[in-house]
């Protein structure tokens, strides 16, 4: 059952219970009061009648007549003869409860027994054929003869009044309940609407629509719930996103890695098979062997870089105080660049670096610059001491440059600007990724500025050792 329906039903039940109990009490009180009023009235009437009867009997006595039972009956008859159409009836009984006289037509069916008593102000109620009566008894004792006078009042009107009251109240209650249920329905719908909103939103989220949010502007518990719900959804969305990202990165890495491995493998296996299967002529054999050699070299380079990457993930680094100018001059002398000139423009400073790792970084950056086909056949390595106790190393070329949309991705594993991964000029696609990781361990970042067809500057800033300079 829906919550709003529960709310409506429970409130309706509550209202009807309260209404009916209060109605019951009210009707009962009213009825009791009506009966009492009627009894008082009837009592007065009785007293009046008795007085009347007594005075007429006294007159008889004064006239010297003897009072007998018959006399009394006669008097009573005459007294009540003009009351034929009144609501009061009368019945006379002997001491042995034998009916002497009655003008009440239903007297035979009346249960009189408990009425006979000597207290005149008590009454009892009887019901005959939907008519209600109020009975009073009187006790007369004359000349050792006892006569019971029973007054019978028709009080059906009071009962009818009660019935009417109950009916009217029922109608009123039904109207009240209908109006109340409309109001409560409206209220509960209004109150549960935010819950339905929340429900819809969570359904959407569970269907994978993670950007779904709820907008509920209330300061109550539901508003709070909506806020925490939104916070939860935010959290889930970021988690899912980062999961997807890492999954994508892993996927890219595997794709890149398998491509890097498979191409040289195919060439090596293919050429080797060719050579061992057929007796090829000198020219073909030489070409095949060349390919095998260079492709194997490529695999070797790749395996070295992969190993360095793996070692790096263990985060072992040996920092050593190094004179940077001397260091760069030493390693640049070892780098073969064929017909490209390497210009050094360095200031001296003492830095704390891991020499072998820094060598990997510089070699990679210089190789990359070379692959960009610098127009002036020149690569510049610049080293400057900066004002903020930093030393900036930049590797600059005037080559092809990197298209804008690729700059932020070039440090990803196996990412190549050229989608075809053309390796006319070598490279494995993990050089910059390696540099970035090494520099991160030196607590600095790789900064790449590039413009297509103009050139590229790759730089990073290292901390200068404090006690020097």
């Amino acid at each position, binding site marked *: 059952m829906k919550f709003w329906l529960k709310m409506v039903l429970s409130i309706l039940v509550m209202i009807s219970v309260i209404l009916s109990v209060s109605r019951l009490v009210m009707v009962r009180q009213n009825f009791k009061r009506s009966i009492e009023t009627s009894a008082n009235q009837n009592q007065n009437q009785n007293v009046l009648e008795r007085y009347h009867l007594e005075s007429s009997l006294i007159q008889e006595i004064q006239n010297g007549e003897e009072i007998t039972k018959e006399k009394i009956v006669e008097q009573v008859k005459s007294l009540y003869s003009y009351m034929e159409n009144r609501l009061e009836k009368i019945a006379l009984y002997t001491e042995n409860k034998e009916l002497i006289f009655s003008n009440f037509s239903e007297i035979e069916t009346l249960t009189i027994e408990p009425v006979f008593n000597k207290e005149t102000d008590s009454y009892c109620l009887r019901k005959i054929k939907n008519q209600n009566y109020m009975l009073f008894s009187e006790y007369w004792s004359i000349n050792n003869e006892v006569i019971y006078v029973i007054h019978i009042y028709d009080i059906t009107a009071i009962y009818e009044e009660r019935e009417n009251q109950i009916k009217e109240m029922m109608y009123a209650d039904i109207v009240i309940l209908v109006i109340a249920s409309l109001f409560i329905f409206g209220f509960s719908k209004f109150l549960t609407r935010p819950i339905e909103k929340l429900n819809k939103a969570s359904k959407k989220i569970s269907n994978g629509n993670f950007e779904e949010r709820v907008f509920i502007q209330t300061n109550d518990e539901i508003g709070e719930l909506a806020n925490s719900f939104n916070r939860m959804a935010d959290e889930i969305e970021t988690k899912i996103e980062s999961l997807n990202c890492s999954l994508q990165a892993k996927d890219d890495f595997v*794709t890149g890695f*398998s*491509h890097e491995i*498979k*191409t*040289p*493998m*195919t*060439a090596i*296996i*293919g*050429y080797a*098979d*060719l050579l*061992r*299967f*057929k*007796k090829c002529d000198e020219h*073909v054999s030489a*070409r*095949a062997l060349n*390919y095998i050699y*260079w*492709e194997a070299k490529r695999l070797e380079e790749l395996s070295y870089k992969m190993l360095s990457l793996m070692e790096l993930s263990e985060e072992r680094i040996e920092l050593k105080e190094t004179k940077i100018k001397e260091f760069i001059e030493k390693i640049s002398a070892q780098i073969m660049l064929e017909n490209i000139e390497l210009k050094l423009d360095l200031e001296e400073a003492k830095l704390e670096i891991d020499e072998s790792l820094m060598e990997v970084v510089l070699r990679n950056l210089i190789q990359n610059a070379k692959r960009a086909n610098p127009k002036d056949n020149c690569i510049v390595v610049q080293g400057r001491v900066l004002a903020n106790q930093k030393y900036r190393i930049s590797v600059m070329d005037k080559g092809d440059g990197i298209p804008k949309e690729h700059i932020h991705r070039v440090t990803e594993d196996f990412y190549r600007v*050229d*989608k*075809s*991964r*053309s*390796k*006319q000029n070598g490279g494995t696609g993990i050089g910059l990724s390696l540099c970035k990781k090494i520099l991160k361990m030196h607590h600095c970042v790789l900064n790449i500025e590039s413009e297509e067809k103009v050139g590229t500057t790759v730089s990073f800033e290292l901390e200068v050792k404090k006690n020097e300079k």
Partner: protein
Amino acid sequence: MNRILIVEDEMAIRDLLQIGLESQGYQCEVASDGEVAADFVEQKKYDLILLDIMLPHVDGYELLEYIKQNFDTPVIFITAKSQTKDKIKGLHLGADDYITKPFEMGELIARVEAILRRFHKTSEKIEIGNITINVVARTVEKAGEKIDLTPKEFDLLLLLVQNKNMALYREVIFEKVWGEELEFETRTLDLHIQRLRKKLDWKEHIKTVYRIGYRLEV
């Protein structure tokens, strides 16, 4: 003679494909990027195109769509992308076959032949002198008369025919026909060669090359 276009940006693989296919008697042309390849396809007619997916300028998927929309040339993808979803994508776009790197030359050639046969670009029969070899039915006829060959003899004959006029190393012949390495000196290969020579009456065609192996001279 079937003309094949090889589109591959890796020079080593491109040369390998060319050497392998030309030795089988195919006429090959090469293109190193998608744009050049599209020009070639437009200008000349090819029986088959071997296409790499990751190409500069125009990639293999785009080129495939272009080829399939304008020509009815069969295309085989050759690529390092070995995931099932890549294969499905390639085949959905209309590639006739999909070969993943690293591939074996033998398998590549077999697939090339299968595709050419399917497109009726090549006959199922190879004729050398008065000998007719039906590659699909695996039967051999000499001057219209059927010759019974064992399966191994047939495979050996096919290998020699497909590499005619070339000296083949006996260890590798054994490996390719019997599928296992020649570990010790066995006479099996020589025996089969002798049976072939006798059955086909090819004493002067199947030559023994000293210290190397055998060569079919036609």
